[in-house]
């Protein structure tokens, strides 16, 4: 059996196990998802008010509405929360017990990520559905299944990108004692540059070139833009190309850093 199929089977089994375990907290998932859509809804109402008040935005009401309705879903779908946990496992030596197992410690985090997202979907999708229904008259709904397929692909790539960035930050724990500040810095930087606070389309024109090409755009904003915006076929192709490029480059770097880290690793509590 090849390594890939074995790893996939391990991920599948562990995801199922995690789902069974995590469903104990189904009440908590509903509450977390409620908090997850609070900010997008507040922003949505604010920017619609600004538009209705005559603000000259570079985008129209349909874009703003669709953007913020989808935002909560996309931030959840592409999120990763493992950096602090993974860094802890490295620092406290829990990694040791995984090094003698036939699967990487990262597999555990993949399974955890997939299982929590699976459970959150059940809480989040009905909420998004209600908001969508309230604003149904000013939503952009792209014709044809093609855009939705691209949306799905882009979300998967975005999720991999965020996960890879988290591995990179956590892997610094092989050399540093405390990566807490870095984790926090990543969260703060990403919240603005990914478009989770304000749509990147509203960023000032002098920041355009940088904002449009930095990696965080491809973790949240770009997937949303595929549905909400008027990206041409050319923009879509270029965007997906850049996104794939970031995924590949960061994955290679993460792999190298992880391998170097494993060599530098001296177990604690072994």
């Amino acid at each position: 059996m090849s390594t890939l199929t074995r790893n996939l089977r391990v991920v599948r089994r562990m995801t199922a196990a995690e789902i069974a375990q995590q469903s104990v907290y189904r009440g908590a998932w509903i509450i977390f998802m409620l908090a997850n859509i609070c900010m997008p809804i507040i922003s949505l109402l604010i920017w619609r008010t600004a538009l209705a008040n005559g603000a000259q935005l570079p985008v129209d009401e349909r874009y703003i509405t669709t953007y913020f309705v989808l935002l909560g879903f996309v931030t959840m779908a592409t999120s990763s929360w493992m950096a602090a946990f993974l860094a802890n496992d490295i620092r406290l030596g829990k990694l040791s017990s995984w090094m003698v197992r036939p699967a990487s410690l990262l597999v555990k985090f993949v399974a955890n990520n997939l299982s929590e997202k699976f459970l959150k979907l059940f809480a989040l999708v009905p909420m998004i559905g209600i908001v969508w229904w309230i604003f149904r008259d000013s939503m952009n709904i792209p014709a044809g299944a093609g855009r939705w397929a691209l949306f799905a692909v882009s979300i998967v790539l975005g999720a991999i990108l965020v996960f890879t960035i988290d591995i990179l930050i956590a892997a610094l724990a092989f050399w540093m004692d405390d990566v807490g500040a870095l984790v926090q810095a990543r969260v703060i930087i990403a919240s603005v540059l990914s478009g989770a606070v304000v749509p990147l389309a509203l960023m000032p024109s002098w920041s355009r070139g940088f904002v449009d090409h930095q990696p965080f755009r491809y973790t949240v904003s770009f997937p949303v833009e595929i549905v909400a915006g008027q990206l041409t076929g050319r923009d879509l192709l270029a965007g997906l190309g850049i996104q794939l490029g970031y995924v590949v480059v960061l994955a290679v770097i993460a792999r190298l850093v992880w391998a170097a880290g494993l060599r530098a690793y001296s177990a604690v509590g072994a």
Partner: protein
Amino acid sequence: MSTLTEPLDRNWLQKQWRHVRLWRRFFAQAVVRETHYRAHFLTTLLVGLVQLGLGIVPTLLLFGFTQDVHGWSRAEVIALVGVYQIVTGLIATFVAPNMNRMTSYLTEGELDVVLLRPVSSQFYLTLRWINVAELTNVASGIVVLVIGLVQSDLAPGVGQVLQAVVLAGCGLVLLTAVWSAMSFLAFWLQSVGPIGVVYLSMVEAGRYPLVFFPVAVRTFLTFAFPVAFATTFPVRALAGDLNWWPVALGVALAVVAMTLVRLLWRRGLLTYSSASS
């Protein structure tokens, strides 16, 4: 020296005074503890400043596209963000450290020990722990408020400042009451840890003036989740737009909210069956 047979307090006033003295001790202890964790103080300060900056980003971008929104200029909204930062900073200092412990109080049986003490258990659970470092956010909020006021050419008189302070105080009490009520649900729901997350993301609505929201949401943000009293009304008072009626309404609402929370706490205690014994 009093003997053991003598009652702890002879009257209601003495009982309140004893709680004030106790709270002063809590505060003094928190200050001493903070001096041991200077790095915590510094990181809280830095994180607070970054979050304040990020919180203003949407407002700055918004006013890049328009001069005013429903009669609010950019400077007035900045003053409002300052008030928001002050009120949420006070909540983070005096209330949040306690609310975040509510689940463990109830599920680990720590409440048992509190109930044995000669002190109001609700007072103890709501105000025991103080995070002094968060006061830096109150300070930065004052700076932002002053910047906003200077830019907007507002020169509030003594009466208007008084109105604003009373209204912000009412907002503080009301928001604390709402969070308490949400936390006391732990009596029935067992775990309320995540409720704090919902609360904090809803408080974010206070970063913007009330008129930025549709009418139904305004009502909600005034009476059900009263962030309006914490930010919009104080700034309007500073601008001289308010008479004393909203102030009276705020005080009345604060009294009602405190009474309701008190009742909820009593009701909750009845259902409490210790977790440790």
